[in-house]
């Protein structure tokens, strides 16, 4: 993996801040998507996003334990060393649709986990700090597990490739 010079993470606190932010923003986004699907009467997909949020929450707590006793730096949102425009597990908003199917939602989530894995892998490959490299590799491994878990979920779906059904109603006039 090629190192992007100004995206190299050098210290453990910096790395942990990235990891925590990645997980927290992911949880927040899944919650937001859960809300949004509820508002738009797609309870099945809302439940999927809620479940993803719950798992994310657990993972975030785990990572936060690594940071116990450490003083984390404060970094403005735009100075995080992401390889993506936003933190890696917040997803591509444009892929969302209120009538999205379970398959689409899980593929959305899989994309997130893949980006998360890629981020950690990048750190594992490029950090100048041994401890960071090891921990990042460990986290990349975990993300891979998540990807496997999601892939299994997708495979078990009756119709994993289903697309959003046709919207039979016109948009509403609200204000």
């Amino acid at each position, binding site marked *: 993996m090629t190192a992007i010079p100004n995206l190299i993470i050098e210290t453990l606190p910096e790395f942990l801040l990235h990891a925590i932010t990645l997980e*927290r923003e992911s949880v*927040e986004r899944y919650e*937001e*998507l859960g*809300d*949004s*699907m*509820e*508002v*738009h009467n797609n309870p099945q997909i809302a439940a999927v996003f809620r479940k993803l949020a719950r798992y994310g929450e657990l993972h975030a707590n785990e990572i936060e334990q690594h940071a116990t006793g450490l003083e984390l*730096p*404060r*970094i*403005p*949102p*735009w*100075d*995080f060393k*992401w390889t993506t*425009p*936003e933190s890696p597990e917040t997803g591509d*908003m*444009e*892929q*969302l*649709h*209120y009538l*999205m199917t379970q398959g689409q939602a899980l593929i959305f989530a899989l994309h997130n986990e893949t980006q998360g894995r890629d981020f950690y892998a990048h750190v594992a490959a490029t950090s100048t700090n041994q401890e960071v490299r090891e921990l990042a590799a460990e986290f990349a491994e975990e993300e891979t597990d998540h990807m496997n878990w999601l892939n299994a979920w997708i495979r078990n779906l009756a119709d994993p490739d289903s697309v959003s059904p046709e919207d039979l109603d*016109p*948009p509403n*006039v*609200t*204000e």
Partner: protein
Amino acid sequence: MHGNTPITGLKPKDYKTGIKPVWCPGCGDFSVLSAVTKALAHLALPHQNVAMISGIGCSSRLPAYTSVYGFHGVHGRALALASGLKAARPDLTVLVAGGDGDGFSIGGNHFLHACRRNMDMTYIVMDNEVYGMTKGQASPTTAPDWTQSKLTPHGPGVPQFIPAAIALVSGATFIARGFTGNPNGLTKLLVEAIEHPGFSFVQALSPCPTYRPEHKAWKKQVRPVEEEATSDPIIAAQRIQTDDGMSTGVLYQTTVPVWQPEQGISADTGQLEEVFFV
């Protein structure tokens, strides 16, 4: 960079009310909400000292979703309401949010005069080139040949309003363009805009998944501005007029005196009345 960040326990989420947005999934406005709350958390602004003012439209729902003081007013008048608030309460950080229809069509006159007045506030326009709440009619920023609205079946047929250009000639002292596909970049612009003394205008390109699905292409079209922000209005005008409206970053920034009424007490009512005595 790290050292500049205020020490704060406030997180972006602390600036959200928890009210579930009515925006369509996929709407760029979610990213603006995210960017605004990140900016507020970054600046560690106390909730009670911030006011978020809006008019009517999808994007104008923003105040309800942010846990600062808010006013969801009537269509097109957000800047006016905000100007009154700022004049009366200069101690507050005043943010104004709205859409392209609200800000440039029905509220166009207020946009000109808010730029000109240069009061210290930040105006965020979520530009999706369409009216989302009234069934997708063309807005001032819609291309002349866009034929998807029943109201203008042959397309609006009139040139697009160029918000940054209008802001520039009207006297805005900070003009930036962001993209909701890059929320952290947008956050940075918002922080700079809020910190800018004077009227700061941020146009946030915000795709509408319902009426303008073709906006998915924006992701590939946007790019950072190539040059540093200029304080020369002639250079800024040339850049703004010659680009395709897809370059993001600070387009223009200058410092001129901020308009704010004098506030000090030198008389009481009784003294004012003295002039009337025969």
